[in-house]
């Protein structure tokens, strides 16, 4: 469904991705874990060309793109098959909630406004913001903004939604509402690639866990494998640090 082959990326002398190979099946929820600086966000941003990888290949559906010499047409095509939910929400500040959700449909895909509005309403209803169609981003709480961000992504009906640490900018008490919306999205069978530090989400919702460190995929497998029986030393170290209580309770 989505496949990355041998992805390399460096910022100047700093090599961030050292040959990543990754396959995500349709409808799968993949969580990428790893310490900060491991390259997980960069990897995610390479998938929709917000970063341009130096080398490698991306296969999404029936489209195959070479990172090295991707044309702007190919990039746009990939971007129209993907969607992203950002850490800082990045809602369009000059548009209200429903306009935010409609923008990609109307301007990007040239959908008639009437139909786009219907789709946008459905998406906003799904994330529980039925009464906030006309609200501007600055009138919404962080959790509400991020839910609009998720609605903006699902309205596009993309092949995959990329989640870039969707809850890490939120106040602790607002994390729950966003996670439950993400859970609902996952249940609908939408392909998701999620970079997060929310271990509960990784354990309960993910079908596949990828652990990254220093620009490499160190280990991957089902949540059960990774959390209860990590094979690599780096994975164990990371989990010990991030889940100290879990370590004792087993």
């Amino acid at each position: 469904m989505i496949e990355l082959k041998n992805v390399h990326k460096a910022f100047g002398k700093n090599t961030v991705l050292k040959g990543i190979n990754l396959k995500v099946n349709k409808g799968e929820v993949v969580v990428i874990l790893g310490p900060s600086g491991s390259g997980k966000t960069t990897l995610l941003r390479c998938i929709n060309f917000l970063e341009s990888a130096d080398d490698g290949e991306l296969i999404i559906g029936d489209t195959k793109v070479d990172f090295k010499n991707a044309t702007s047409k190919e990039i746009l095509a990939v971007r129209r098959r993907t969607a992203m939910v950002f850490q800082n929400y990045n809602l369009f500040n000059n548009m209200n909630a429903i306009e935010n959700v409609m923008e990609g449909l109307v301007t990007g895909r040239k959908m008639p406004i009437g139909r786009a509005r219907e789709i946008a309403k459905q998406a906003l209803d799904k994330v529980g913001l039925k009464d906030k169609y006309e609200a501007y981003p600055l009138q919404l709480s962080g959790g509400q903004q991020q839910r609009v961000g998720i609605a903006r992504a699902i309205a596009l009906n993309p092949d995959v939604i990329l989640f870039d640490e969707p809850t890490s900018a939120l106040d602790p008490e607002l994390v729950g509402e966003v996670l439950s919306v993400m859970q609902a999205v996952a249940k609908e069978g939408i392909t998701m690639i999620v970079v997060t530090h929310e271990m509960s989400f990784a354990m309960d919702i993910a079908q596949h866990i990828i652990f990254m460190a220093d620009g490499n995929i160190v280990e991957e497998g089902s949540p059960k494998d990774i959390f209860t029986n990590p094979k690599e030393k780096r994975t164990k170290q990371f989990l010990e640090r991030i889940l100290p209580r879990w370590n004792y309770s087993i």
Partner: protein
Amino acid sequence: MVFDFHYVITSFITAVHYIPVTLALSLIPLFIGIVFGTLIAVCRKFRIRFIAPLADIIIPVVKGIPLVLHLFIMNFLILKPFDLLAQYYAWADVIRFMDKVYIAIIAISIYAVIIISETMRSALMSVSEGQYEACYSVGLTRWQALRRVVLPQVFPVAIPVLGNNLIGLIKGSSVVYLITVVDVMNGALTTAQINYRFLEAYIAAALIYWGICLLTERLFAVWENHMKKYQLGSAKNNLRQEVL
């Protein structure tokens, strides 16, 4: 000579008739400046080939030239060739019949494009990279992102500074009397040439400029509030940019 307010009024009444000239000398350059200044700023932001590096060199250099020099140079470049031709063919006083207002508008416009391109550049920088990324993530092109999301956010930020730019142009346009264009300043002085009441004439001119500038400030404040309706809370705390 004793100050006599009566002469201020005489001068004032004459000068008021030249307000349209002063407005033309500032509003036309403002418009040209917004169009080309935005274009230049966008080209620099997107690093458009040839244009961006060229603008990187030219803008900071030309920015250093005072308006009055723009005016003198433009006046010379446009008039002198005509002058030489006229002398050569013995045309009688062609130049005296040429309206120098156009020369003034061209010179002020060049100055305005440079200044406003810098205004728009810093306003463009106020829109975070995340806004562009969000546009790309939903499949917009660069130009769609600019038109639909970035520029609508740039203008509310730019408006107060553009207001200051316009006030700068209105005040700056008073230098055109140096090339004998009759604007508010020169208009006020025409009466002084007869009655030698220069102080009164300059005070009359000052009152008119002051009035226009206050009105401009008010109008831009209203416009700014109108544009900022959706940017709740971010309207305050702007360190006011200063005017020349």
